């Protein structure tokens, strides 16, 4: 690789940038020319750093939005071929900053490689946006981490695929990428089934990677609680005025129900594309149980019904989109003081 051919930016915290230890953890983001700290070790490995960005760990944790905005603006100006973050080892604040910056930079099309201890929360924060090289918990693993970091960084800077996690030495990012193999799915299925029958070792090609969501704590007193209705049943006002799609939803919608006693078939319908909607359209209360919750409200068994219901279509929706819908709706509910939700699924 010609060093002049690619542009490399390296992010690190205040300590590794030489700005100071804990007393400098509140340091605002800075932009420094050339390699700093561990960045100097990347040059002999073929990855010379052009610009170093640094930020105090406390500053990033306490001012995440402005810190990210500053760092991302600098990245936009530098337009690097690769961004290197860390190594952060098992430093939670530093790792988180690396992960968040990595995630946001990758969303803007910048290839990112970082390094940290596998249990560091920064791995989750990166959301698969970065190639994460596993390290030891402390800085003693620096000399082992840098060559791997540099090799992946060089590949990314040159626009090459660094290879599989096993080959290149990074943590699986959880992204399912297609590869073309020599044998058809049918041939592989027959191999698998015969191996199973013979009692030989076999390996599935795809395993579940579902998030386990712990149940929320019980509401202390539902008779005092503000309760909201949320549904993925595709229930919308008649005529679907905001054009909620029937499947693969890209958005969720909110509609007022203040003063509405019941989801009448004259006023509401479902546009869901994943089930027979006949019964739901005959009585939309069976999709969004407004009639039942109003009765509970009248009886004083719940405190009050939130004046808005939230809706989307939950069919063929990518998990990442559904996760975002959930986070955004939950943020609104929390802001409104909602303490409990009746979430109807189909």
């Amino acid at each position, binding site marked *: 690789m010609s060093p002049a051919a690619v542009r490399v930016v390296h992010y690190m915290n205040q300590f590794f940038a030489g700005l100071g230890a804990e007393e400098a953890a509140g340091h605002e983001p800075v932009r420094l020319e050339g390699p700093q700290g561990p960045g100097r070790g990347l040059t002999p490995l073929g990855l010379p750093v052009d610009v170093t960005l640094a930020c105090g760990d406390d500053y990033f944790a306490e001012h995440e939005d402005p810190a990210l905005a500053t760092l991302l603006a600098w990245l936009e100006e530098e337009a690097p071929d690769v961004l290197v973050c860390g190594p952060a080892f098992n430093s939670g604040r530093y790792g988180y900053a690396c992960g968040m910056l990595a995630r946001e930079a990758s969303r803007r099309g910048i290839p990112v490689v970082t390094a940290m201890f596998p249990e560091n929360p920064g791995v989750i924060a990166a959301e698969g946006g970065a190639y994460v090289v596993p390290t030891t918990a402390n800085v003693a693993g620096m000399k082992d981490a840098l060559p791997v970091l540099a090799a992946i960084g060089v590949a990314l800077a040159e626009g090459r695929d660094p290879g599989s996690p096993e080959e290149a030495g990074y943590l699986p990012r959880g992204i399912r990428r297609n*590869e073309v193999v020599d044998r058809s*799915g049918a041939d592989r*299925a027959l191999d698998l089934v015969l191996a199973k029958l013979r009692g030989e070792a076999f390996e599935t090609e795809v395993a579940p990677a579902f998030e386990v969501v712990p149940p929320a704590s019980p509401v202390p007193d539902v008779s005092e609680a503000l309760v909201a209705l949320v549904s993925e049943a595709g229930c919308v006002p008649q005529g679907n005025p905001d054009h909620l*799609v029937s499947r693969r939803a890209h958005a969720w919608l909110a509609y007022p129900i203040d003063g509405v006693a019941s989801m009448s078939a004259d006023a509401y319908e479902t546009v869901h594309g994943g*089930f027979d909607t006949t019964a739901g359209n005959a009585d939309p209360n069976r999709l969004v149980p407004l009639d039942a919750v109003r009765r509970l409200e009248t009886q004083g068994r719940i405190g009050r019904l939130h004046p808005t219901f939230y809706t989307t279509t939950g069919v063929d929706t990518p998990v990442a989109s559904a996760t975002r819908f959930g986070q955004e709706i939950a943020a609104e509910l929390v802001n409104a003081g909602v303490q409990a939700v009746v979430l109807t699924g189909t």
Partner: protein
Amino acid sequence: MPRPGTISASPLTVAAFDVRAVREVRHGEGRVSRTPGDPLLEIDLDVVESLCSDEPALGSLRAHVVRPGDSVRIANVLDAVVPSVKADDPAATFPGVLGPADALCGTGRTDRLDGIAVLSTLDMGALIDPDDPIPASYVDMDGSGASLTPWGSTINLVLELVAAQGASLADVDAAARRTLLRAARDLASATAEDSDADTESVFALGEVAGELPVVVPILQFTAEGPGLTTYLRGAPVDLVSPCAVDPRALLDGALTAGAYDSPAARVSTGTIQRSRLLHRLLNEHGTALVCPGAVLTQGYLDDADDKRRMADGAAHIAAEELGADAAICTTYSLGNSHTDTMLTLRACEQLGVRAVGIVAEEGGLTDHVAEADALVSTGNVLERADGWTPASVIGETDHEAPAQVPVLHYLDAATQLGDGRLRGVTI
């Protein structure tokens, strides 16, 4: 009419004739012709286009021939069919749609053209539900998408169909399926005077002596009304309970497609005819394993009890009627039906039938049970192909394709019958 589960002692012979070039002509008097021993096929497009003249539900038909490497995208693809004909009784081909429903199928001799397919296009989405458009369905003849679909590497006779004004979905769908299969049968009739096939395969399901494992395919299809249904001998696969079928009949045109959702994860008629899974099981019957039949089951069921009942029924037929030691469970479409697959895998394992599932991914699995410990991935349908812009598009469409088309939109790209070579891997 033979019971679906009847296994005939007579073998099925499939005689394949290579087609390496096509010449289009328009003189309206001949049909297709192929000089014996010559891989050049001559197709009279006027004759092909006249096929819709007795189909009142179809407004028009334009025939095109496209070849691998052409800068052409075929849009709104409904189905792809391998041209084939029952050599001794052409009128019996594709029973229940063209031939009588009880016509012999899965035995006797079938002539088939290799290297060429017949595709139909029609904007069926607007008829199925204009407010819930089904995903666009493509076959690209060049660009990175061409290698994703098996129909990007065949010479294709494309029937560009337009529905008649005011015709119902059911009528248009039936007419489109009938016209496509007629064209495929008539094309294969070019072999009538040619006795020298390039390859000849004989599929027999005789008694097997000795201790070989019994392996059966449990094949999942759907029946959700016109446009969303697969047909067995012309009738919807709308099963009260799963049934055992002769796998040779499935290769021989008994099963035909009519479901147009999720192009990458549905199964075209041609993919059933060419099924690698069925060919492997039949070829190895008596040597490495015993395949006494296939189980046909239904997925995409709305009700949880229906799902449990269907899964349990499929496993019991495999175990008790066919004596299976192991089963390979295929999947139809995406989402809902993956729960049916998982329940079937669980039911099999609980009966002591070792089970393997074939599933496509949408960034990962849709559902999973602990018993599904051996799954084959047919690829992640959300991944996008490299950008490509065709010089021309065949197939009535108002929709502009994105520059990088997701795998989901390519016909049979991740078919869960297991014919493709895509596989999802974690990075």
